[in-house]
Structures are given as C-alpha cells and as structure tokens.
C-alpha cells in the first residue's frame, strides 16, 4: 500500500485522468464499432485500467512496451494520441499503424510501443529478444510485456520465462489475469491456477498484485524497477483483475453470470482510486469535473479526427511487405 504522502495531488489527478480516458475511449470504440466505422475484432480493456496506468507510471520513455490485441489501454497510457488510435481503427493513413493494422495492431516506434500482437503468447519471445538486445548493448531499459492468463497456458510462456532467466535479461512480464480466456475460466485453462509458481519454477522472480488497486500496482512497479532495471533480471507480475465487458464484440457471455460481473464492478479501479484520493485530500469534486470534461473533449476530438481521415490508395497495396527499395 502506497503512503499518501508520497503521492502528490498532481500525480493523483494525472493517474485518475489516465484511467478515465481509457474507460471513455473504450466506450467510444464500442460506439464506433456499432456504427460500423470500426470493423474486425475489437477487444476492450474496461475494468483493467489500473494495470495500464500503474505499470506505465513506473516505466520510462526509453523503455520498450509490447502487448496483445487488448492493447488500447496500454497504448493510451503510453501516450499514443487517442486520435491516432481511433484513426487506426477507422483504417485511415492517419492511424498509428498507417491504417494497416487496426485495433489489434497498434504500433508507435517513436514511443517504443511495439504493438499489438494477435497471436496469443507469440509476443513473449519477442520481448525476451528485445531485452537481450538491451542487455547486449549494456543499456538499462525495461522491456515490458503484457499478456493474459490464457496466454500462460501456451508453451511460449514457459519457453520465454526460461530463456529470460537463463540469459538474465530485463523483461517485465505483466500477466493481466482477468480470470477468463475468452469463455474459458482460469481453472479450465490451468490445473494449477497459481500463475506465480509457474514463474518461479522457471527461475523468474514472480509476485501477485491486486490489479484492481492502482496503488498496489504502483507499489509493485517500485520493486519491479529494482529487479528489472537495476538488477537487470526478468520478473513476472501477475496482476489479478477482471474484464467488465465481453471478450470481443462477438461474445454472448454465456460462460459467466451477471452477478459475478456486478460484484467485480463494485471494485471498479477508477472509483476506488478516486475515493482514496479524495479521502487523502489529493482530489476535489471540481478536479473530477475538470478531468471528466478534459477526457470527454479529448475523446470527441479523437473520433472527429478519425472521421476526417483518409483511406490509402489501392495502388500502394503491396507496400510494407519488404523494406522500400527491396529487390521486389
């Protein structure tokens, strides 16, 4: 638990703003999906905001981030403009991936954000390799890799943790355990549901974190920075959280009860943090109103920006298959 003293009002407001804008951005995404402006698969992050906000708060600009198809929150917290993300989902050239990737493939190399990978667990080996490069160059960056509880059942999870520990490279594995892999509950994905032991069994220091409590995530990141950035070792954070919305837009949610969802909504990470901050006097009602207003304006502007975007000409269809000037 973080001592209120070490968090100032500005930081508290910034963090609340961060979580709120992620929540609102996802609401807008769902709207635009229903409107038909966003197509393909769309996976919303609502409910898990404390993880993206807390982890990014503990990272530096020079660190690397790599994620899954459920990466809007990570991209926003990594300060990729909502307008660039929305534009990407509209498939326009103004998008952060030039419109080629869509919701599941957000990239922004300027911000060391390496996507947006839609093959579950296939980005874990990439993270290990990026950290290997960091170590070989004697740098002290953290490579932060987000993935889910379902991903931990893939062989790539075991292989990647072992390689990271064997090579002693600075990867921070952040498992967002939202208790479901699509419709498969944790206990049906894993015989041993304690994912921390799977990390330690591979020689990677691992710990559980309350992913619904922003302060707990921030606290865990302090330790993670000591292990990964300072000592240059890999670490696994299992952030226990919950997805408030369906897995994607093609999900009837037959596998969980409304009551279960309701119970978790009672633990809304945004409300919880706001309440704590107000208690500590780090936040006032008017601050919250300002934040909400700022967020609404930013998201409206993002949608407007996306609507004003442009589609790439089909004449350049084959671009980005090989480097420009490649023999083909």
């Amino acid at each position: 638990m973080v001592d209120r003293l070490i968090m100032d009002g500005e930081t508290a407001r910034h963090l609340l703003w961060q979580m709120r804008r992620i929540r609102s951005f996802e609401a807008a995404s769902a709207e635009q999906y229903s409107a038909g402006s966003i197509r393909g698969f769309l996976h919303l992050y609502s409910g898990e905001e404390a993880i993206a906000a807390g982890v990014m708060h503990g990272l530096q600009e020079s660190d690397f981030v790599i994620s899954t198809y459920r990466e809007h929150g990570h991209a926003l917290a990594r300060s990729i403009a909502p307008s660039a993300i929305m534009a990407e989902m509209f498939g326009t050239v103004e998008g952060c991936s030039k419109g080629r990737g869509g919701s599941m493939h957000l990239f922004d190399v300027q911000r060391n954000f390496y996507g947006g990978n839609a093959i579950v667990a296939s980005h874990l080996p990439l993270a290990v390799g990026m950290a290997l490069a960091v170590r070989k160059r004697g740098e002290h960056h953290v490579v932060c890799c987000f993935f889910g509880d379902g991903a931990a059942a893939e062989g790539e999870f075991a292989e990647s943790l072992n390689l990271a520990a064997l090579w002693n490279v600075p990867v921070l594995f952040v498992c967002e355990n939202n208790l479901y892999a699509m419709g498969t509950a944790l206990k049906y994905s894993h015989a041993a549901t304690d994912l921390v032991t799977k990390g330690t069994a591979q020689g990677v220091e691992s710990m559980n974190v309350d992913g619904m409590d922003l302060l707990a995530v921030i606290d865990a990141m302090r330790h993670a920075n000591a292990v990964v950035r300072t000592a240059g070792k890999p670490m696994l954070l299992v952030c226990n959280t919950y997805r408030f919305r369906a897995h994607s837009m093609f999900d009837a949610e037959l596998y969980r009860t409304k009551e279960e969802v309701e119970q978790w909504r009672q633990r809304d990470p945004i409300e919880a943090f706001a309440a704590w901050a107000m208690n500590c006097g780090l936040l006032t009602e008017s601050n919250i109103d300002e934040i909400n207003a700022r967020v609404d304006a930013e998201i409206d502007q993002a949608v407007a920006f996306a609507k004003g975007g442009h589609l790439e000409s089909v004449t350049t269809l084959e671009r980005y298959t090989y480097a420009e000037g490649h023999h083909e």
Partner: protein
Amino acid sequence: MNDQALTISYRKALRQALRDVLHADERAFLMGEDVGRYGGAFAVSKGLLDEFGPERIMDTPLSESGFVGAGIGAAIAGMRPIVEIMTVNFSLLAMDQIVNNAATLRHMSGGQIGVPIVIRMGCGVGRQLAAQHSHSWEPLFAHIAGLTVLSVGTHEDARWVLPAAMQSEDPVVILEYTSLLNTEGTVENGVGGVDISTARIRRRGNDVSLITYGTGVMKCLAAADVLAHEGVEAEVLDLRVLRPLDQQSILSTVMHTHRAVVVEDAWRTLGVGAEVSARIMEHAFRDLAAPVVRLGGVEVPMPYPRHLEDAAVPQVDGIVDAVRRVLQ
C-alpha cells in the same frame, strides 16, 4: 425445392454434421478452445455442450500444439477425435504435430499405427481481421503427404464432409470459411453423404473452366452468372479435396472447354493454382486453346482496411475480366 432439400445456414449445417457424428460414434468427441462453455468462437458448436456433456465437448486451454497432439494420441489409442483449431491462423503452432506426427506415424511405424483424427479450422479472408488473422494456408496443408485436405466451399459440403471424413483411417484437415457462416444455402437432406475424394462441377458450361475452392466457389458462380449475360458459359469446378487432388476432374473440364482460370484467395506463388496449372501443362498441354490463368491473393500480408482487403484477393469483376482475356 423438394421435401428432400432444405435451406440452412452454413453454420447450422456444420453444427448438424457435428451432432450427427457425435450421435453416430461414441468414440467421437469434439475438443478445442471455447467449443463448449463459450458456445464456439463462431457459435458453430453452440448448444452441443448441453446436448453431449463435457466428456464429448471438451474445452481446452490455449495450447494448440498440446491439444492437437493429444487428439493424435487419442486417435492412435482408438478414439475418433474431432479437434477444432479455432482458426487456421493458429494452426502453425500445431503444425509440427500435424506434419511430423499425424501425417507420418503410419509410415514410420510400418503401417502399424493409423491416426484417424479430423482437424477442423475456421479460415478465410473478408472480415477485416488484418495480417495475423486472415490467412489462407490451404497450400501449406495441401503440400503434406499423409494428409487429406478438404475445403468446404458449399453448404452441402458443410453438412456432409464431416461424416465422410470420420470414416477415414487417416488424418483429415477440414477448412471451413467463417465468412460463409451466416449465408443460407440448400442441401439435400436425409439421403446425404458426399465422398471426400472427388472434385465437383457446381455449374456446367462449354466455354471456359473456372477451377477453384473455398470462398472462390461462390465468387466463380457469381462471375459465371455475369458471363452468361455475355453469352459465355463458364463451367465451375470446386476442387473440394485439395489433397489428394482429383486430377481426372481437372483434366476432364479442361479437355471439355480448352480454357481454364484458377481462382483462390491464397497467395498466388506456390498456391493450389500453381499445381493445377502444372498438371494441366503436363497432361492437357495440347488441348489448351490458351494458357491457364491464375488468380490468387496479392503477395502482401492482409491489410486491415476493407478496400485494401478487397483488392488483395480475387473479386467477381476480376474473374470476369480474366475469362474475357482467355477467350480472346
């Protein structure tokens, strides 16, 4: 429409086929990610968990290599597993199991072991799922000795290839097209049954042969309609079985029309069309009035935007134009 025929969606046809084989053979069971509690990623297996119970409809963790290999082991040990790989895009994770075990065990055991497994996968283009979720890997599977590879381009096959595949003593890969799931079609009822060894002529014609499979079937039939208005009668051959290829049917239609256009969504280089063209070259060279034309996917990872996705694979207009060219 006689009482022997009924109109049914491609999804329902697949589901009815699953129900049939699960009722017909107690050794049969369906396993895969989210086939049970979630109701199937594309609702194909919806309701089957309630009907058959968790021993017959098994949800698996995200472990493609593991559960496909387990399916192979169960087949070796006398069961009749139907393993669903949610989509073909994840099949490379299980490719070693499919090629080095399923397709190879009978041979390296000197015929002592058979692997009667059916591996189903959703596949295909057209839903704006971008580069990692829009693969057309029919050519990869069709190259593997020891496999039988089926491409389900019609409602009739959606309804009937599975029961036929379950009779095979060898591994059968069934490719189902998710873009067809909601489409309605007419299939013979009751009588039922199709073979899984021959190609089928879906429309008769004398002027040109359109040779295709999968979603190409509907596109070629549509192109044939357009051409009919120009007085051109195209014959449409649905390959259906991509391995072993029904060479006789390919040669028969070409010897009948003397002109052929091969249509597929897969990348053009090393596509199924290359094999079809090469076989025509070898066995019907002197019967050709014009060189065989191949229409395939543009050699670029699939872009997210609709207009670029459409431009990346053959469309009806392009097929019509190609036919006009070969007729000149």
